[in-house]
């Protein structure tokens, strides 16, 4: 029976010596460059010994003013920049932006394109979750082995992305009204092959990790996020679902053709780091189910709505907000169009990683410095999104 870690002090001072030792708190800046692979993010911690007393996140080291650039370009011109928001999963960012513009302009997407979008998005989800588990275990100290396993699967999926869209990472694949290039029969066969092989990889991954003593001892009861705080702090995605919040934008908004697929949404109960790890494994299994259904049912048809013109694409004045369930949480775009209609007047990204960081301090209080790195890893941030 694995005993979870408790918070009680493991040492006692000799009787009569309390107050003889002068202690001070130590301010440490876990600075922008650090061994955990999450990007340039700084945390100013105040430590009492090794226990965290206060923690302030500092961000902005990758602020590339993506929003200002979009105000100077046409609507389609900022599609390649959305790739670079959450740079691990470029396909879902593209879909979020295309969805927001289609909502504003009232464009209907043909069925074949919707199915292709779902296939790409779910492949991105399993890619993201396996890499995140790899990074989290790298932070735990498993020097690269789960990360290399995850990257092996990622390379297979990136081969498919390269064959379909021309680029491994920055795919720039979705267009308003569909996708840029159609998926051929060969690509669909490759996707089916990936989907058939993936459960075996997941089983291997789980066998090594889920019952692992070190993982259990270090992640259970660490970084607990209560359910009410998660809702109040606008936490979304796997992090919120691990705390018990039953909210998945795919089930609530039913955007695209998600209403037709039969899949469950796993929900955790404790909300510690272990729950956030395990919920990603379960979500990967659900994504495989969705992929199997989508690949079975994909209809023939045009890959982009024929009435959408790329030149002189204008949107009537007004604003609107469109969101999807990205692998990290709820990714939304708030777009405002003015009289000219050729460029966005205001373009705002609602980034899941930025808002999921709100409760970092609450989760880390009382834990040791080593736990802070794991908690940050389980929030699953990508600095391109946090800083835009």
């Amino acid at each position, binding site marked *: 029976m694995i005993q979870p870690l408790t918070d009680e002090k493991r040492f006692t001072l000799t009787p009569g010596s309390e107050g003889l030792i002068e202690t001070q708190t130590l301010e440490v800046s876990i600075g922008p460059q650090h061994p955990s692979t999450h990007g340039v993010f700084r945390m100013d911690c105040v430590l009492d010994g090794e226990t965290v007393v206060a923690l302030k996140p500092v*961000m*902005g080291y990758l*602020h590339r*003013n993506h*929003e*200002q650039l979009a105000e100077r370009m046409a609507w389609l011109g900022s599609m390649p920049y959305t790739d670079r928001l959450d740079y691990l999963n470029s396909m879902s960012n593209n879909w979020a932006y295309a969805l927001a513009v289609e*909502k*504003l*302009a*009232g464009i209907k997407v043909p069925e074949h394109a919707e199915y292709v979008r779902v296939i790409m998005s779910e492949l991105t989800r399993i890619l993201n979750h396996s890499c995140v588990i790899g990074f989290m275990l790298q932070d735990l100290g498993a020097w690269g082995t789960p990360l290399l396993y995850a990257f092996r699967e990622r390379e297979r999926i990136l081969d498919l992305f390269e064959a379909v869209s021309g680029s491994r990472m920055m795919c720039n694949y979705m267009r308003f009204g569909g996708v840029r290039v159609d998926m051929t029969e060969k690509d669909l066969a490759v996707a089916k092959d990936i989907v058939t092989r993936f459960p075996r990889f997941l089983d291997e991954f789980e066998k090594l990790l889920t019952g692992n003593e070190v993982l259990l001892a270090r992640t259970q009861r660490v970084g607990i996020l209560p359910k009410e*705080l998660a*809702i*109040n*702090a*606008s*936490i*979304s995605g796997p992090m919120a679902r691990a705390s018990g*919040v*039953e*909210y998945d934008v795919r089930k*609530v908004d039913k955007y695209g053709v998600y209403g037709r697929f039969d899949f469950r949404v796993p929900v955790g109960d404790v909300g510690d780091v272990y729950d956030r790890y395990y919920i990603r494994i379960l979500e990967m299994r659900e994504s495989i189910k969705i992929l199997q259904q989508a690949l079975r049912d994909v209809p023939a048809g045009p890959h982009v709505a024929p009435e959408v013109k790329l030149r002189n694409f204008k*949107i*009537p*004045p*007004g*604003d*609107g*907000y469109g*969101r999807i369930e990205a692998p990290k949480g*709820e990714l*939304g775009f*708030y777009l*405002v*169009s003015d009289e000219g209609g050729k460029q966005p*007047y*205001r373009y*705002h990204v*609602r980034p899941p990683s*930025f*808002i999921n*960081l*709100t*409760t970092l301090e609450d989760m880390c209080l009382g834990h040791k410095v080593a736990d802070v790195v794991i908690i940050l890893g389980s929030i699953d941030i990508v600095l391109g999104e946090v*800083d835009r």
Partner: protein
Amino acid sequence: MEAIEKIKEVAAQAVPGAQVEIVNSTPAAQQPALLVDREHIYAIAKFFKEDPRFQMDFCSCVTGVDYLQKADKPGFIEVVYHLYSVAQKHGPVVLKVRAPRELDQCRVPSLTPLWRGAEFQEREAYDLYGVKFDGHPNLRRILMWDEFTDHPMRKDYVPPSDYEWEPTPHDDTLQRTVQTGGITPPTAREELEKAKKK
């Protein structure tokens, strides 16, 4: 969710004295917003959060928008809140509040005491637009460095000119290159001569 006119009536009844107007989105988007005045935005937001018909407990997105002066209408900075409900799985309810553009008068009550999720996003609106949120626990810059002055996302912000090398400058980039004494290729020089002659 009910129609926007009904929501507006209910909200206006619940908070007496509030001036609530409907602002339409694009015709296709069907997401009309409620424009509320500065004094009553906190009460209206609280009503939406606590009323059992709505229960908007999830503040999804907080955005600042800068509208410049147009003809005789004064400019203003608008803060837009998108609220959703996790308990009842409906939404969005869009609230808008406006403040004048001048830095000393640009103040809006903060909704962070109601929704903790608005904390970072309101800090970002302050950093990039200069909107001060009264009642925010920790209002300081979040994305730019602390010594930065001015608010970069405003429409009238001019970034510093470090364009010393630009292969094909034109328009205002060309003006800036000339001012800093940078290198102008011959084709750009011709453009300048033509513009001076006009």
